[in-house]
């Protein structure tokens, strides 16, 4: 049986790598992203790699009023959806956020509110269908607020807590909810940051972990694995010490 997969934010580097892995598996792919020409490049590529079918459509995450129609259209095309992966997001510049409430709200809208909007709509469909996996890429940054990145972190944390509640609710309908927390990944989103060293991972390595975690119906995924231990330490530093630090 070919899997039916919806990817929201499909042109992100991690999402594209995930789509390629499912293409080899002959999945039916429904891809949403902003950039039409990149979606069309991806569609040709994924078909050659083996996807049974690929449908691509543009969407705008910030336009909340369109979300219901976007998801309805995906269901019209795929009939049922086995796996949804929400992979879009933006990495806002913390210093800019500190100067502007409007920019901070916009970053929260993109990284948290719009995701929650999609999740609300999707959850009801998955609950009805009583199977499948909802997977969302959040971030290790959501595990603790740090001065260098707390707007992004707070938005991701909101999604993570929402997913926790959703997991509890949908467990009774046999729907799995996976919260994916990547560490540093070498992607266009992080292009401006100086890279190198063992903490940086490639998108295709992260993608392999994601596909495996979906398969195994995991609840959480830290990827690469060592972030689980790094974040365990960071979460457990007493606040009276943490607040003096420079992280």
């Amino acid at each position: 049986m070919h899997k039916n997969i919806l990817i929201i934010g499909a042109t992100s580097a991690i999402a594209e790598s995930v789509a390629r892995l499912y293409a080899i598996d002959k999945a039916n792919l429904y891809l949403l992203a902003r950039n039409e020409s990149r979606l069309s490049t991806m569609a040709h590529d994924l078909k050659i790699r083996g996807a049974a079918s690929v449908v691509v459509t543009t969407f705008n995450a910030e336009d909340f009023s369109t979300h219901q129609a976007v998801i309805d259209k995906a269901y019209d095309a795929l009939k049922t959806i086995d796996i949804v992966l929400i992979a879009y997001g933006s990495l806002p510049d913390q210093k800019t956020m500190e100067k502007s409430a409007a920019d901070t709200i916009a970053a929260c809208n993109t990284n948290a509110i719009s995701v929650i909007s999609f999740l609300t709509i999707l959850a009801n469909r998955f609950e009805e269908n009583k199977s499948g996996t909802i997977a969302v890429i959040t971030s290790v940054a959501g595990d603790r607020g740090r001065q260098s990145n707390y707007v992004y972190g707070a938005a991701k944390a909101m999604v993570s807590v929402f997913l926790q509640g959703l997991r509890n609710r949908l467990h009774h309908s046999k729907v799995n909810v996976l919260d994916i927390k990547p560490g540093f990944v070498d992607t266009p989103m992080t292009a401006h940051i100086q890279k190198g060293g063992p903490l940086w991972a490639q998108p295709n390595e992260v993608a392999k972990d994601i596909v495996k975690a979906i398969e195994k119906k995991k609840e959480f995924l830290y990827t690469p694995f060592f972030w689980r231990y790094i974040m365990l330490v960071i979460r457990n530093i007493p606040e009276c010490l943490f607040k003096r630090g420079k992280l």
Partner: protein
Amino acid sequence: MKISGWGRCPVIESEMLSPQNASQINIDSEIIVRGLGRSYGDSALATQVLSTLSLDHFIAFNNDTGILTCESGVSLASILTTFVPKGWFLPVTPGTKFVTVGGAIASDVHGKNHHVDGSFSSHVHSLQIILADGSCVECSRTSHPELFRATCGGMGLTGIIVSATLALKKIPSAFISETTYKAKNLEEVFALFDEHQASTYSVAWIDCLASGEQLGRSLLMLGEHAEEGGLTLNNSKKLSVPFTMPAALLNQYSIKAFNALYYNKQREKVTERSVHYDKYFYPLDGLNHWNRLYGKNGFTQYQFVLPKSVGLAGMTKILNEIAASKRGSFLSVLKAFGPGNENYLSFPMEGYTLALDFKIESGLFELLERLDAIVLEYGGRIYLAKDVRMSEATFKQGYTKWSDFATIRARYGADRRFHSLQSKRLGI
């Protein structure tokens, strides 16, 4: 960010541009294009480099003819994983699959089947290239033929290859029937190459530290695509060299011992086995970061070709020089080339090529300069994709069509935009 070639020398600070698609490519200053960084020396190094690694999409594939169009950042590895299960293989492959299609064209790489199938560009039908003025041109043997011949083997110095159309080769299985012959010296292995000209694949491993009667003792490995075995991919786990090893581990004693063991692991004169293509073509790809074995100063691969008529005399002289220097190399590779092609800077010519790895240490470049002199004396040349140190004079004497190349480069304005450390060193 800091970048280097596969030889890990030199390491330079460079600004890396990573366009997400061809329309984002905007050339307003001097640049060189870079793929997976597997050329050994400084041919993909410059203060500003443009990475093609995000241009990694397949564009079209015809399952009846095997004609593939893809972006230039697609790796040979992903072509193999996608198309071997469908019964298609690379028409020509170098000794690593971790190179991009763009890099394979720019270096006009060759493989173990050069004597029958020519080099990589022989199977490229057309390519799209962004020129110095920002325009995108499709070129082939019939459309802009001079640009095509300059770009194939042109080390990225004519423009930015963004996509290419090439012909894959039909295979019955993913396995290779390998026959190995033991040759006790250089003369014997040359005779074996001649005798087995009809074999699809042939390459010899040569013990470059053996001398005297045993000078050039080697194992010649022939291969044919097997009928049986199925179209499976190799799933064995990869090993990795976790950190840079102390360079002193590689010395004349350890290499001599290794080479003796390797040569003597085969007792019979001839052996046969069936081996997966991944192990046959890419034995070193199974060991991640194997370039760390050569220590923190890095290494260089010295690869030259000598014309067929003087091959034995020239090769004997060079091997004597290397054996006397006691600077050895694991797995030195000898191969008989078929005729060269019309490209201005392609490396292969009819004759014999030898590739040797040397760790970089004092005295090495003096030895290599002595070898350069012998190579030139016999009418040969050095492979640009491996080179990190040859002189402008050595280059210009070996690559006799260099000035035609320079003329075409100037005609397209490429000499004002596309430069690597190598192109500056070689005066092109």
